[in-house]
């Protein structure tokens, strides 16, 4: 327990107690909620066993925001929800109101701030993304830029519920996948495609050789010596460009503007509803970085979304839809090329082959 007497530097107080941040209606009805109703893509009501109601108004955010942005939100909260608000796990903002009458004025004020109202129900949810060139050293692409380009184009899908089910898009700027890219309906992933450089002077001085060797998923890094000191060599043909060696060893930079770019993944999900959680699967193996607006990435995502919108049945997530129509048809209608890169040859890859004569002809 931290010593808070003042004689000692205070540490380990832990997160702020959330009870201080709960709207009175929420406090009183904690654990008693009975049902909810989605009133629009921007607001819903939760009704308690006690009859109490709480309205949530949802607003989109770019996540990377200025202090002024947060203060704008605080002003609105003070005006309409007694200062109470929350963020969602996908970085939307939610105002929590007990007075139905406050909803419209709040929404009007939000519109004045040019913030998007939406994100509830069968929409393209806010994109979960990462740092990119803004802040991370291993980024193969920018995060905020791709996200912004996508959301500008998918705006109508955020504010209106036009889709068969909710579509979760995620972006990660490298294979570390700080966004939940590996289990998203649609995912955009920054990738390298050229083996790391070996800066041997750095390697021998800055890198722990055994960890560097162990960091490689394909065992492409082998022990070697350089100037009489332990170093590493690279089997280039085995490198899958993951960048993990660079994470461990600054002497192996992998960024390369000519070859970096993104790949696109589809059909993952996290929820246990109906079908089990599943990984996103490779759709487009490479698209070059074309900042500032990554038009090819936007087009590819749009292609998937359009095909999904036209083809899926109500309630079907992207992956469920593809499983129903079959992957061959998915590639056919999107026009994406199926290549040998799409065949999983890693660890459990064997488990993904078609071991059946169930084939659409």
């Amino acid at each position, binding site marked *: 327990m931290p010593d808070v007497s003042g004689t000692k530097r205070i540490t380990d107080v832990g997160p702020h107690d959330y009870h201080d941040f709960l709207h009175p209606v929420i406090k009183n009805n904690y654990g008693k909620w009975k049902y909810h109703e989605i009133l629009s893509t921007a607001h819903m009501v939760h009704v308690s066993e006690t009859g109490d109601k709480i309205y949530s108004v949802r607003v989109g955010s770019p996540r990377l925001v200025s202090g002024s942005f947060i203060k704008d939100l605080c002003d609105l909260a003070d005006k309409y929800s007694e200062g109470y608000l929350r963020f969602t796990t996908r970085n939307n903002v939610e105002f929590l109101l007990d007075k139905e009458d406050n909803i419209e004025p709040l929404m009007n004020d939000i519109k004045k701030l040019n913030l998007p109202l939406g994100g509830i129900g069968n929409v393209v949810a806010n994109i979960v993304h990462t740092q990119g060139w803004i802040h991370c050293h291993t980024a193969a692409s920018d995060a905020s830029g791709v996200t912004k380009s996508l959301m500008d184009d998918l705006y109508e899908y955020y504010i209106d519920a036009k889709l068969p089910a909710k579509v979760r898009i995620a972006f990660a700027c490298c*294979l570390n996948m700080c966004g939940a890219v*590996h289990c998203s309906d649609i995912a955009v*992933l920054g*990738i390298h*495609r*050229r083996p790391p*450089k070996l*800066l041997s002077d750095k390697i021998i001085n800055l890198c722990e050789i055994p960890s560097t060797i162990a960091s490689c998923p*394909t065992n492409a890094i082998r022990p070697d010596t350089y100037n009489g000191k332990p170093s590493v060599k690279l089997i280039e043909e*085995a*490198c*899958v*460009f*993951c960048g993990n060696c660079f994470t461990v060893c600054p002497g192996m*930079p992998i*960024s*390369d*503007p*000519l*070859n970096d770019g993104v*790949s696109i993944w589809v*059909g*993952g999900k996290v929820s246990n509803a109906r079908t089990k959680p*599943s*990984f*996103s*699967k*490779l*759709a487009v*193996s490479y698209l070059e970085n074309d900042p500032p607006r990554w038009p090819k990435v936007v087009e590819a995502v749009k292609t998937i979304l359009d095909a999904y919108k036209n083809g899926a049945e109500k309630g079907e997530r992207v992956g469920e839809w593809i*499983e*129903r*129509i*079959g*992957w*061959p*048809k*998915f*590639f056919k209608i999107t026009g994406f090329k*199926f*290549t*040998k*890169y*799409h*065949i*999983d*040859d*890693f*660890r459990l890859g*064997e488990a*993904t*082959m*078609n*071991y*059946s*004569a*169930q*084939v*659409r*002809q």
Partner: protein
Amino acid sequence: MGKKYETPLLDELKKGKWPSFVAEMERAAETSEMTGDLLGQVEQSYKEKMGHWKHGGMVGVKGYGSGIVGRFSDLPEKYPGVKEFHTVRINQPSGFFYKSDSLRKIVDIGEKHASSLFNFHGSTGDIQILGVKTSELETIFQQLVSFGFDLGGSGSALRTPSCCVGMARCEFANYDAMHICYNITQAFQDEMHRPIFNYKFKFKFSGCGNDCTASIARADMSIIGTWKDNIRIDQGMVKEYAKKMNLHKYVTSKCPTKCMNYSDTGLEIDDSNCSKCMHCINVMPKALRPGIKGGATILLGSKAPMVSGPRLSMVLVPFYDVAEDAKNGYQWFKDFVGKIWEFWDEYGVNRERIGELIQRVGIGNFLEAIGLEPLPEMVSSPRGNPFVLYEDYVEADEGQGESPQG
């Protein structure tokens, strides 16, 4: 010839309603002393709870490296009749069809020159004459050949191909499994009789997805019937079935692709989404039939567990137009198999089945080597991990620029 040994344990297995192999052995023992000794040795196995056969042993007929499985007792003094007790594998006719005259001839051979015991059939498909002494092999072989039978496979060779009853007696057959099986077996006599492979290689031909030869589980190459066009529907008969059963529960809701719909207006099938699983047709054979543009899906790689675990075959060629190829003596198929064997020969190691090899070298590389395009039909889903081995990258005029990370 009477009973040579007391076999109280085996005698227990003469009781019960199912036909008894012990009774069969005793019947065989009436014409073969060897089988009398077999009863003795097996009784001892039952007592001791372990077998009494020695490890392996190479035997064969002249010019053949396969077709005979050598077997020697480890108690030859005690049971001299089973000192040598080899198996002759005889290539069965397509579809396991016989006329009694041929069968009698085979039986005669087994009774005169062996133990009078047979397997109809071995798991791979051969007729097996059990209990043959080395000295009898050539005689048996000569006699078999004289009325048009030959040995099957064994060892590191092509194994006896087999097929389902197919078009001979099954309305579900999408291609002529018996014909291609016969043709291919004839074409590959050398590969079957003279082991030069890394290990065994099996073909099994099933006329439809029901896979009545279990090919997908136990053939290195599984050829399974399918069709390209629409399921033929007799809506009148569908209505008849609907009177007797809940079509929704037992038919449409079990369709793996959910491509069927039954309503008052009849049964509708989105054939473009049908994966030819056979279910609906199985349940309503009088109402539904596969399409008329029949052919087969070719799958590769199934096998028993050794060494890296059991395998099922995986899709390699989604649609093979068998009838078209038949016009040309199945030349495409033979060339295709040839390419696979070449690859196996070049890259496989001793005792490595084709399925294991492909997994070891990577499917992408295998496809490239045999000249097949990667297709989404080959996978149940594309890769879920990002470790992609992109094969080439762009190089700038590197002398000029800065190194990326400076």
